[in-house]
């Protein structure tokens, strides 16, 4: 079979249209200015901190975690914004209906929208590499840390993007979809943390009253569904000699098999969360196939 690679048609169109809008160039410029500003601020702090005792480099070491967190934060805001109108916009223009009369499946419409958002994310990342690499070299981080950071940011983009496309398939207004996406993100964050700490709390209480119970070694599994947990592990590993596994193993006696899973926190958690985002995309596909007239007209 001679099957040529074909880009998802929706993604392709999105890129053509997107490249013509000035919004993206402005956003890229803005983000890089912002990142540059942070690097300059940190360097200025370094200068101020260096007194008669010589040059103090400790502030430079802050560049990596600070920039990393800023990038994670920016991504968590930008992706909801760029995906917020992805489905509702097509619905409003009524082009969604026309798409549904073609053989393209609702799922691939959702996937195409995510793909388009991801290319935009890639552009942001690529454009910020110069600033980042200067900062990394100054901060004494390896190239691997930079590549790792980019990889993990891409994963986060896919996750938030899927939630964003899903929200856009539910909510009409772009602003509402943006807020809903962020709310779902925070909701998952809070929910996993609450379950995790309650679990541990119950265990701690039981132990304090003397009921013999085994250690809650399974509790951290809940945190694997926290989309930010692999990023946390990544930061920990890049900057310190410990890791999430190290922390757990320090506190409790982890059975070998479970320990293996925690050792591979980043790949396991990323894989789990990518499955969750696939679920969001599927749900988006389901919502897309419900068209104007299937719903009650107002």
């Amino acid at each position: 079979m001679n099957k040529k690679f074909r880009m998802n048609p929706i993604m392709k169109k999105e890129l053509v249209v997107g490249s013509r809008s000035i919004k993206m160039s402005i956003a890229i410029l803005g983000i890089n200015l912002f990142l540059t500003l942070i690097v300059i601020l940190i360097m200025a702090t370094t200068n101020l901190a260096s007194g008669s005792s010589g040059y103090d480099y400790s502030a430079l070491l802050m560049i990596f975690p600070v920039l990393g967190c800023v990038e994670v934060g920016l991504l968590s805001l930008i992706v909801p914004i760029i995906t917020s109108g992805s489905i509702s916009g097509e619905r409003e223009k009524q082009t969604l209906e026309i798409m549904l009369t073609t053989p393209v499946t609702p799922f691939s419409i959702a996937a195409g929208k995510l793909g388009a958002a991801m290319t935009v994310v890639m552009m942001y990342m690529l454009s910020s590499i110069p600033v980042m690499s200067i900062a990394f070299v100054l901060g004494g981080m390896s190239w691997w840390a930079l590549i790792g950071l980019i990889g993990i940011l891409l994963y986060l983009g896919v996750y938030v993007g899927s939630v964003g496309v899903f929200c856009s398939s539910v909510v009409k207004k772009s602003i509402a979809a943006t807020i809903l996406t962020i709310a779902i993100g925070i909701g998952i964050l809070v929910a996993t943390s609450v379950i995790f700490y309650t679990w541990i709390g119950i265990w701690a209480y039981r132990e304090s009253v003397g009921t013999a119970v085994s250690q809650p070694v399974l509790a951290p599994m809940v945190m694997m569904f926290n989309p930010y947990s692999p990023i946390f592990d990544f930061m920990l590993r890049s900057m310190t000699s410990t890791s999430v596994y190290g922390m757990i193993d320090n506190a409790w006696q982890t059975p070998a098999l479970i320990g293996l899973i925690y050792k591979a926190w980043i790949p396991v958690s990323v894989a789990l969360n990518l499955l969750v985002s696939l679920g969001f995309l599927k749900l988006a596909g389901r919502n897309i196939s419900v068209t104007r007239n299937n719903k009650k007209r107002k």
Partner: protein
Amino acid sequence: MLEISNLTKRYGKFVALDGLNLHIDKGEIFGFVGPNGAGKTTTMRIICGLLKASGGSVLVDGVDALKRPDDIKRKVGYVPDFFGVYDNLKVMEYMEFYGSMYGMEKEDVDEIAVGLLELVNLADKQDTFVDTLSRGMKQRLCVARALIHNPELLILDEPNSGLDPRARFEMKEVLKNLGTMGKTILISSHILPELSEMCTSIGIMERGKLIVSGRVEEIMQKSMGIQPIHLRAMVPGMEADEAKAHVLTVLKEQPLVSGVSYAGEEYQIHYGGTEQQAAYLLKALVERNIMVSDFHREKENLEALFLEITNAAHAAQVHP
């Protein structure tokens, strides 16, 4: 080509399609007429797989549209009653986009699109941004778009609504061209005369049912009988009022006259007879000392037929 049997669609309790039966042969241009809310759009959306039917069956070229919507999508091109265009996209890119959704290669799409744009009179607009086109042009672009995958059945939902007369004319030319290409076309309108010129068959729909359908000529024939005859006349030696009374009396005596009205110096006679019988009516008038200055039957008016038929259907529903 298209075989709809007993199609029903309910929105909650509301019955939008009430056992619709419709048959369209290959190569026909079928005009689908009915007042707003008759269920035309609903029918079309069901054929395209955009809407689930509540019952009945739809066969397109022998394929069950309700059970295999994905197979139908390659056989049907749909021009909805709205435009559906993007900002920041050029005409040719728009065509390429839809082509790619059918899995077509760019080169093939380009080749076909050039031909289609020529067909819809947009050949010189390839590099124009879609959102800057006029309404008429957008509508014609939508027709070209719906043809990109060479569908066997083209469905157009009120393609003329909201267009100015010039754009309507151009659209009509495009559709006529399509007809000569041998495409099967289902086209809806709430205005009947608009369709009579370009369609080979017509179906009149009302409240989710097809009331009348047939070849345009047959339907036209039916419409003949109900066109009023216009008459201008005077009676020598009589005042206007007296003359009017006389003419009305004479007219009402005639067996085939079912009604007469008088407005603007003109009598409108509802006359059930044929053209020959109408000649005798004229003779009878002259014999009764009425001098006729104008006597003609109103042009075939499908609109009137349409109203007649839909009124009859209403009456039937009110008094079963």
